């Protein structure tokens, strides 16, 4: 098995942590923002720090938005991290005028008053029904916005910070984490390994895979 991922450079994310985490797993990491290469990649990673609107603009300018939309629709392997998860939704209160990739009809909203925001550090994640890749445990967050509902067709893991929110979503070889698996110690490394095997294994290689 050729353990290679294509890590999208969106111009607003720092990639070093993600790159290092996959390299520790013995994977080869290619970094770029070429739509054709991204389309051809078996295992694609959409990282994310920065702001929703800026990131969407960057995806649109490079034509990566349609590559990602197609991949989401065809259920090909994808890992989205932090802001990457939020970009899969419809919109975000962070950048009210920007439109997301629209894989599901959710809008990211800020944490309520009364809890520290942004949420920085480790929180418990509880994997819900149907999760194959996600397992319960402590994960590392750095976010000011989050989704509060599970979209249809995805299995969800949850955390609580002033109320329950989506810690991660999975659907076959597609995994989207609000937390940072690359910064979540051994639990994060195990999750990345399971996703890598799912993405590059026989089931992930079949375009489509199966919805969980």
């Amino acid at each position: 098995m050729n353990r290679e991922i294509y890590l999208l450079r969106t111009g607003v994310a720092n990639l070093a942590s993600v790159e290092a985490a996959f390299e520790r797993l013995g994977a080869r990491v290619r970094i770029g923002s070429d739509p054709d290469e991204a389309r051809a990649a078996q295992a694609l990673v959409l990282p994310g720090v920065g702001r929703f609107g800026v990131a969407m603009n960057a995806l649109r300018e490079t034509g990566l938005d349609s590559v990602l939309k197609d991949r989401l629709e065809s259920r090909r392997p994808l890992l989205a991290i932090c802001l990457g998860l939020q970009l899969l939704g419809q919109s975000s209160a962070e950048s009210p005028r920007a439109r997301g990739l629209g894989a599901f009809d959710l809008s990211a909203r800020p944490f309520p008053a009364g809890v520290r925001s942004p949420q920085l550090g480790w929180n418990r994640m509880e994997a819900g029904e149907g999760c194959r890749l996600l397992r319960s445990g402590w994960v590392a967050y750095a976010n000011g916005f989050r989704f509060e509902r599970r979209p249809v067709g995805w299995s969800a893991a949850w955390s609580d910070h002033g109320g329950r929110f989506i810690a991660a979503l999975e659907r076959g070889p597609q995994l989207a984490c609000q937390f940072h698996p690359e910064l979540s110690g051994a639990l994060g490394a195990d999750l990345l390994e399971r996703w890598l095997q799912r993405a590059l294994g026989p089931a992930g290689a079949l375009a489509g895979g199966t919805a969980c």
Partner: protein
Amino acid sequence: MLALRVVPCLDVRAGRVVKGVRFEGLRDMGDPVELALAYEGQGADELVVLDISASLESRGPDTETVARLRAALSIPVTVGGGVTDVDAARRLLEAGADKVAVNSAALARPQLVADLARAFGGQCTVVSIDAFRTGSGYRVAGRSATERTERSVLDWARDVEQLGAGEILATSIDRDGTRSGYDLELLRALSDTVSLPIIASGGVDGYPDLIAGARAGASAVLAASMFHEGEGTVDGAKLALAAAGIVVRSSRASGVTP
């Protein structure tokens, strides 16, 4: 529920971890990557790496050490020291920092905080505040605590929250290196003033100080000497915190159960 973070701090100079009392009389404490890996193994939730000489010597940040740490560590790393503009911050983030802390340069030009938050997001933008106590409240120190200003700590904290910062690293320079415990009044005042998470820093002697810091409103408790000198360990700290009823992340090493 979000766990209290236990955060070892590495003060790095010329690629080595150093420690001094009140920013003076520095002693060599070892290799940053070796120490960092040991702390990660003990269950450290994050590392803060401060290139404490950067600002005084007016040179850029130490990206080489950051890159070495990044390759080895799978926990968040916050880096500060010598960050004077967006480009310097970008170099640190590209080298592998997850958050960048600014101090002197933000005091000189508060707009830097807004520029960083816009470029990288507030969750990457930490403002480090070196505070000292006066008869009329806390004031801010700059330039690695060598320069005392008239600026009010609480006003500055409010300003940086408005400008988009995501976290405050609050160091009491009265307490730093003295082992007399965090300045709890400072922590309480800050956590009442802003809704940002606050990292408590300066003055830790033992585990009870970490517990007191958490109870004073800190989201993270930072210590250096206690860990470097082997007088306390991260897993020991977490056991003590958990026994005091404070939520901490369990890890294989510490054996703390959630």
